[in-house]
């Protein structure tokens, strides 16, 4: 069973995925089978996802990522934390991010 992520977790891109930035767009390209639902799927991120992705450095906790996002986005800290947690949970479930 997948464990719940907490804001203390540190997440990084899985070594089974290649992350590229092409023309300002983050494109996530599975390296091994089983990341996507279909064999030929790539992933891109929406605007929020892209902003969060750029702050993930494999060192900051998710809480610290939310704090650094507050420099760019308005809104209550709780909302930013919910976004970061939601993002990390979605990508961890898909095998794109791993919790360290």
């Amino acid at each position: 069973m997948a464990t719940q992520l907490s804001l203390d977790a540190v997440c990084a891109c899985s070594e089974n995925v290649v992350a590229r930035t092409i023309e300002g767009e983050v494109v996530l390209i599975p390296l091994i089978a089983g990341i996507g639902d279909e064999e030929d799927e790539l992933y891109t991120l929406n605007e929020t996802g892209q902003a969060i992705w750029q702050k993930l450095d494999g060192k900051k906790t998710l809480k610290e990522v939310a704090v650094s996002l507050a420099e760019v986005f308005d809104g209550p800290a709780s909302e930013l934390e919910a976004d970061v947690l939601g993002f990390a949970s979605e990508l961890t479930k898909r095998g794109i991010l791993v919790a360290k």
Partner: protein
Amino acid sequence: MTQKTYVVQRGRDQGLPWKGARPRLEQLDVELTERCNNDCIHCCINRPANDAVARAGEMTTEQIRDLLRQAADLGCLQVRFTGGEPLLRHDFQELYIYARRLGLKVLLFTNACLITPGLADLFQRMPPLIEIEVTVYGMHRESYEAVTRIPGSFAQFQRGLNLLLERNVPFVVKWVVLPQNKHEMVEFEVWAGTIPAMTRPPSYVMSLDLRNRRDDEEKNVCIQSLRLTPHESLAILTRDVAEYKQSMEAFASRFMGPSGDRLFSCGVGCSLCIDAYGRAQPCMGLRASEWTVNLNPDLKSVREEDSFSSVSVPGMRPECAGLEDALSQFSRLYDLCTTNPEYLRRCARCFLKGLCEQCPAKSWTEHGTIDTPVAYLCETAHVQARYIGWLGKNEYGWEVMNWQERISVQHSIR
């Protein structure tokens, strides 16, 4: 900024993810070798598998890795490995893994004969992210080997496909229509329909190219003798008349119309093809030395040795610094116009352009110039256009002024 989902899945039918500018390079084609394990009677490029001179001239592993890195830096998402038979290269696995680790999808064109259990395992574990394309030359040993001229190749081909099927590695098949196998087309289609990744009808190679390097007159005579006549092509295309007419209507409104004196109406300058020896070509078919640029410092430029076109491009240089430089040189081709009176009289004014496969590469392969109409392609297009009703019995595509009206649905389908 709360949103419920942050990730967009991009299946292959959803197109590329660019919101704004497209990457400088969208696809890179690399011919890993011109050598092949088969010796197909119709082949436009192959050299023998053990051709030591060809092998010695091929790019090294490191040169190809460098090209792949450059392509990724230019935003390229897909590399096509083709040949000859790309699996003949001893470093194929290494190059494949390297490309995938750079975040490239790999489109592999192969005859499948050289697929090993190890390679099939690799494709299963690290999928190419796009279906492997396998060319089929016959449904039985007799027909297959009458084309490939290599005893035992049919069994190798079957073994290769089974290795992929056992591991659920997605592949699609395409068929080269030849006198040796055309009686097996229905059998091929039924079989193709059982292949899991064949969600669309198979594609057919129907107009055979002459030798791409204009290097073998005897073989060209053979290839010409194997070509379907325009009426044979039409008979294949119109097996399902309703489907054919419907697809042609959609095609005509999008792709047909006179192109004027401009020679390149394709995506020239957006993609690149690198031959086995390290020359960049604007496309797979255009190998004239004056239209290619050399990326391989070990390779002597051949530009000065021949010159056989009636047009030239200012600013094209025989050597180039890398893929980006090659792209910017080739992008000049887009504005290239011809002054060949025959081309201006016919192709420039002909609304069948698009339906007709005439292009600078086909012209070069047939005639050694990039702006000479190719009679075989011309006739094939006219036979189709007359069948659909776009042209009268004795009319030619370049004579028609009201072509928009002709290709409109009301006029063509009857």
